């Protein structure tokens, strides 16, 4: 039965392929032939979106507001006032945290006025000496977990300070400390809500899908129109990106709580609130904590893009360094971002896992030992900082704040490394590059562009049908129809070509690497750590070296894509293989299989559905990077999204293009997910 159904699927695929090729052969490429290209029926959609947004933002429900600065009454639309109020509130908190770390006047201004601050020069919030923050972080690490975390905290803070990245790092930190908790609570709330209501879950699901697959550049302009420019706008863009995984994992965790635990809560007399917050959420913590980890990783991964709309800090400086081709400096800043991510992640985990001791009968000193220690650190550091003013005469007090780019730097060293790579590999790579472009990429791109739209639909919907029946076929078809009716179909085909190439190569590399590393506990651990690091390491950094080695070509874009998209392929392969029940491995061992056999006959088939979900994530990551590839120079949808930043109807264009990209991702997602779920059910590991 299994054999015959497999067989029939294979036949179906062959039949589909034949039809596809025939269609490609016989449809005439002409502008008027709608089988070749659909007419762009919804090309006015961007204008419509744009006009609607602008109407609501700039015209709807105007209220009169007096502007004291110009002593005139002005009409200001309601929505603008509302979004500005939200922006203001967020900005206040970001500034508050920032000024605690590095000083400033904004918080004082919020309670008084700029005049007050201008007239009273004493009205400034002084920065904490960096030693206080560093000491505090170490102490917190020790309190939460112990020596290990304390060492990590001290290494991170000292690195950041000594390398002269203190101020930008604190700027980045301050906006992450706002964005991450908001994403966390928002995600938790939405997750809980969708747990409680099937309707909410059903409505939220597509929105989350779109939010996760839509390229950031496409919603940068809308955010700016709604919320303005600044750290808060960066934080909002970050929240949009970081919340969906939190919602997903919360829902997953809650659904996995055993019904008996829920009943135990009810029988303990919990009301709904207690049931949710004392029983369900704590029990689902394993998944929720993975959500927290994802939120933090995503927040820091957004540091660079957030600087496009005004977020200060490491991201902006990194972009600036790259623009001056100072790759060494950019690397140092990238490492700072990774360190902050790792430290925050570990601290939040440790905090969530803390135990309470009810029977400890402690003296006052013991109970307040950490507060007292912090006070001591504060005093000692302040005194040191004060003494420092006598030692460091050039105006930089290294015991207070190491000024930006005034610390030690390994830039020349790193730069030399980059140059060495360049000198050593350039010419051999060039031959490879020329070969790849002329023999593989150009023909592939041409092939994609020569597909008649009807053939594309037959192929994709056909695959959808074979994998998941009529429903999948219609969903896939619906997504593609939207793209086909815009005027960007050809661009989407180019995106699809790069996506295909990137996913195939990343998939092969990732699965091979993952399989090799999963053979051993230690290597598994190392590779997962590497995945975490590369996920937060700002992808922009390798764009420049790649351009220098491969020029402004598709090769450069694809290499950046592959470096990034290999992460999930590897991670899921390792996880999938490690999750194969040990009893099955033992059974295999007892029947005398070799290592290779064990891998190919036992582990791989069982881990395959999970690995396919990895490929699914690989598609998402690859798509993300293909779009970022527009920063290198592409002629696909990404370039148009970048262009939308300056378009007159940028909001509409950006959002529509973003949807096109998201829909490509979702169409692929639909097919892979359906397939993987079906396999899982067959294997009984759903």
């Amino acid at each position, binding site marked *: 039965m299994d054999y015959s159904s497999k067989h029939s699927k294979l036949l179906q695929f062959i039949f589909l392929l034949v039809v596809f090729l025939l269609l490609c052969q016989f449809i005439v490429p002409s502008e008027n032939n709608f089988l070749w290209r659909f007419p762009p029926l919804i090309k006015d959609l961007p204008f419509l979106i744009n006009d609607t947004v602008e109407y609501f933002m700039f015209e709807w429900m105007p*209220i*009169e*507001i*007096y*502007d*004291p*600065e*110009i*002593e005139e*009454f002005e009409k200001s639309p309601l929505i603008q006032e509302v979004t500005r109020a939200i922006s203001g509130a967020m900005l206040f908190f970001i500034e508050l945290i920032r000024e605690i770390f590095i000083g400033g006047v904004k918080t004082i201004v919020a309670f008084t006025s*700029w*005049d*007050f*601050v*201008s*007239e009273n020069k004493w009205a400034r919030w002084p920065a904490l000496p960096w030693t206080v923050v560093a000491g505090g972080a170490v102490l917190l690490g020790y309190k939460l977990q112990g020596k290990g975390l304390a060492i990590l905290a001290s290494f991170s803070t000292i690195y950041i300070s000594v390398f002269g990245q203190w101020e930008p790092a604190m700027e980045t930190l301050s906006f992450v400390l706002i964005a991450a908790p908001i994403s966390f609570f928002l995600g938790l709330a939405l997750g809980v809500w969708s747990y409680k209501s099937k309707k909410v879950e059903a409505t939220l699901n597509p929105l989350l899908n779109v939010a996760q697959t839509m390229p950031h550049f496409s919603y940068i*302009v809308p955010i*700016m129109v709604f919320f*303005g*420019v600044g750290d808060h706008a960066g934080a909002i863009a970050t929240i949009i990106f970081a919340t969906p995984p939190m919602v997903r994992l919360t829902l997953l965790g809650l659904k996995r709580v055993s019904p008996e635990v829920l009943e135990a809560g009810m029988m303990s007399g919990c009301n709904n609130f207690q049931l949710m917050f004392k029983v369900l959420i704590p029990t689902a913590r394993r998944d929720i904590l993975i959500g927290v980890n994802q939120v933090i990783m995503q927040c820091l991964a957004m540091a660079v893009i957030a*600087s*496009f*709309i*005004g*977020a*200060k800090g490491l991201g*902006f400086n990194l*972009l*600036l360094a*790259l*623009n*001056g*081709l100072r790759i060494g400096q950019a690397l140092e800043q990238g490492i700072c971002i990774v360190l902050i991510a790792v430290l925050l992640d570990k601290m939040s985990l440790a905090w969530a896992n803390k135990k309470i001791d009810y029977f400890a009968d402690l003296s006052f000193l013991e109970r307040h030992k950490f507060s007292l220690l912090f006070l001591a650190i504060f005093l000692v550091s302040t005194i040191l900082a004060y003494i420092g003013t006598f030692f460091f005469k050039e105006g930089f007090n290294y015991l207070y704040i190491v000024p*930006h780019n005034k610390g030690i730097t390994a830039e020349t060293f790193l730069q030399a490394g980059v140059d060495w790579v360049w000198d050593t590999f*350039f010419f051999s790579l*060039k031959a490879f*590059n020329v070969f790849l*472009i*002329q023999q593989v990429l*150009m023909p592939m791109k041409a092939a994609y562009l020569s597909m008649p739209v009807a053939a594309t639909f037959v192929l994709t919907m056909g695959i959808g049908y074979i994998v998941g029946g009529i429903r999948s076929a219609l969903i896939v078809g619906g997504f593609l129809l939207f793209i086909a009716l815009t005027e960007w179909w050809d661009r989407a085909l180019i995106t699809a070509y790069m996506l295909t190439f990137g996913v195939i190569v990343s998939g092969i590399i990732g699965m091979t690497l993952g399989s090799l590393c999963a053979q051993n506990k230690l290597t598994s651990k190392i590779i997962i750590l590497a995945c975490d690091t590369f996920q937060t390491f700002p992808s922009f950094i390798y764009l*420049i070296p790649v*351009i*220098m*080695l491969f*020029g*402004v*070509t598709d090769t450069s874009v694809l290499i950046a894509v592959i470096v990034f998209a290999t992460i999930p392929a590897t991670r899921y392969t390792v996880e999938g293989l490690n999750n194969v029940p040990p009893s099955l491995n033992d059974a295999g061992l007892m029947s005398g299989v070799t290592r290779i056999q064990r891998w190919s006959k036992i582990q791989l088939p069982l881990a395959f559905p999970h690995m396919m979900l990895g490929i699914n994530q690989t598609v998402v990551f690859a798509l993300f990077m293909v779009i970022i*590839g*527009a*920063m*290198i*120079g592409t*002629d696909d949808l990404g370039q*148009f999204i*970048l*262009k939308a*930043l*300056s*378009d007159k109807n*940028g909001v509409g264009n950006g959002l529509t293009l973003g949807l096109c990209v998201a829909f490509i991702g979702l169409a692929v997602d639909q097919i892979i997910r359906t397939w993987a779920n079906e396999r899982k059910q067959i294997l009984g590991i759903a």
Partner: protein
Amino acid sequence: MYTIKRTVGAIVAGIILAFSAGSISAADSSSPIVIPTHNWSSQVVMAYVVGGIFESMGNNVEYKSADSQAVYEAIRIGDVTISHEVWQSSFGKSFYNAMAKGGVIDAGSHSAPTLEEMGVPTWVIDKGLCPGLPNWEALKNCHKAFATADSGGKGRWLEGPQSWHGQLMPDRINALGLDSKYVVKFAGGADALWAELASAKKEGRATIIFNWTPNFTDAEGFTFIEFPEYTDGCRKADGGDGSCGSPKGWLKKAANYKFPKTHPAAYTAFSRMSFSTQDIGQMAALVDIDKMTHKDAAKKWLADHGDVWKPFTQAGM
């Protein structure tokens, strides 16, 4: 309804007036002037220079990083107060789009004449990789020298991102009859252009890229190609055939429409501000060559060149 709004407005006004009482008679509001920083050195240094000038006049200043295209929308809405580097060719479109929607005003130009044009690194000419350059006619015979792997045997022009000038360069190639010999590739950003310059130099390969002056590349030597002269309306977008080069361009300053009212003195100074090619080159060199931080570079420039900027701030000039 209207009266209610008025009353509410008046009350709000009253409260705010009470807070800001001291400054109403003074010339400039004390609320900060928001200056954008983009991702290239000279712009960031100049942001701190302009900010330093405002501060010397007693104003509060705030810097916000922003995308260089998206910033005009931000100025229009009022989140950013000014832009001190509006390059005609790259940002003219965004600038005029925002101006058309209302909210952005033109605050005059810098004296630096700018040129934004396709060109080659000077060593390409010195090495004789394409004899006859910088005259554009020379391109007809040496497209092979500019070919790349993905250009299909044609020579490649590396343009800036499409957001800068849209179809301008492809139109020009067609109009000049170069379309059988050249293609245009859009780079993703300025850094891609500089990376191409660096790698071409290392390789000793000829390359045509879009570039502008004043820029830090001036120091290394960069020669712009001489296309047929620009005349009004010669571009395809303006109804011409497109067979012309770029004009000697302007480098404008933009401001939010409220700026002259809220900070009259600062606005006057801003509209007078005019930096020359030399000034901009000096600012960029402090960072790109002397490796100073942007803030330090601005401080040093302000300290060394008081004769240039002090006059902007003096009334009655």
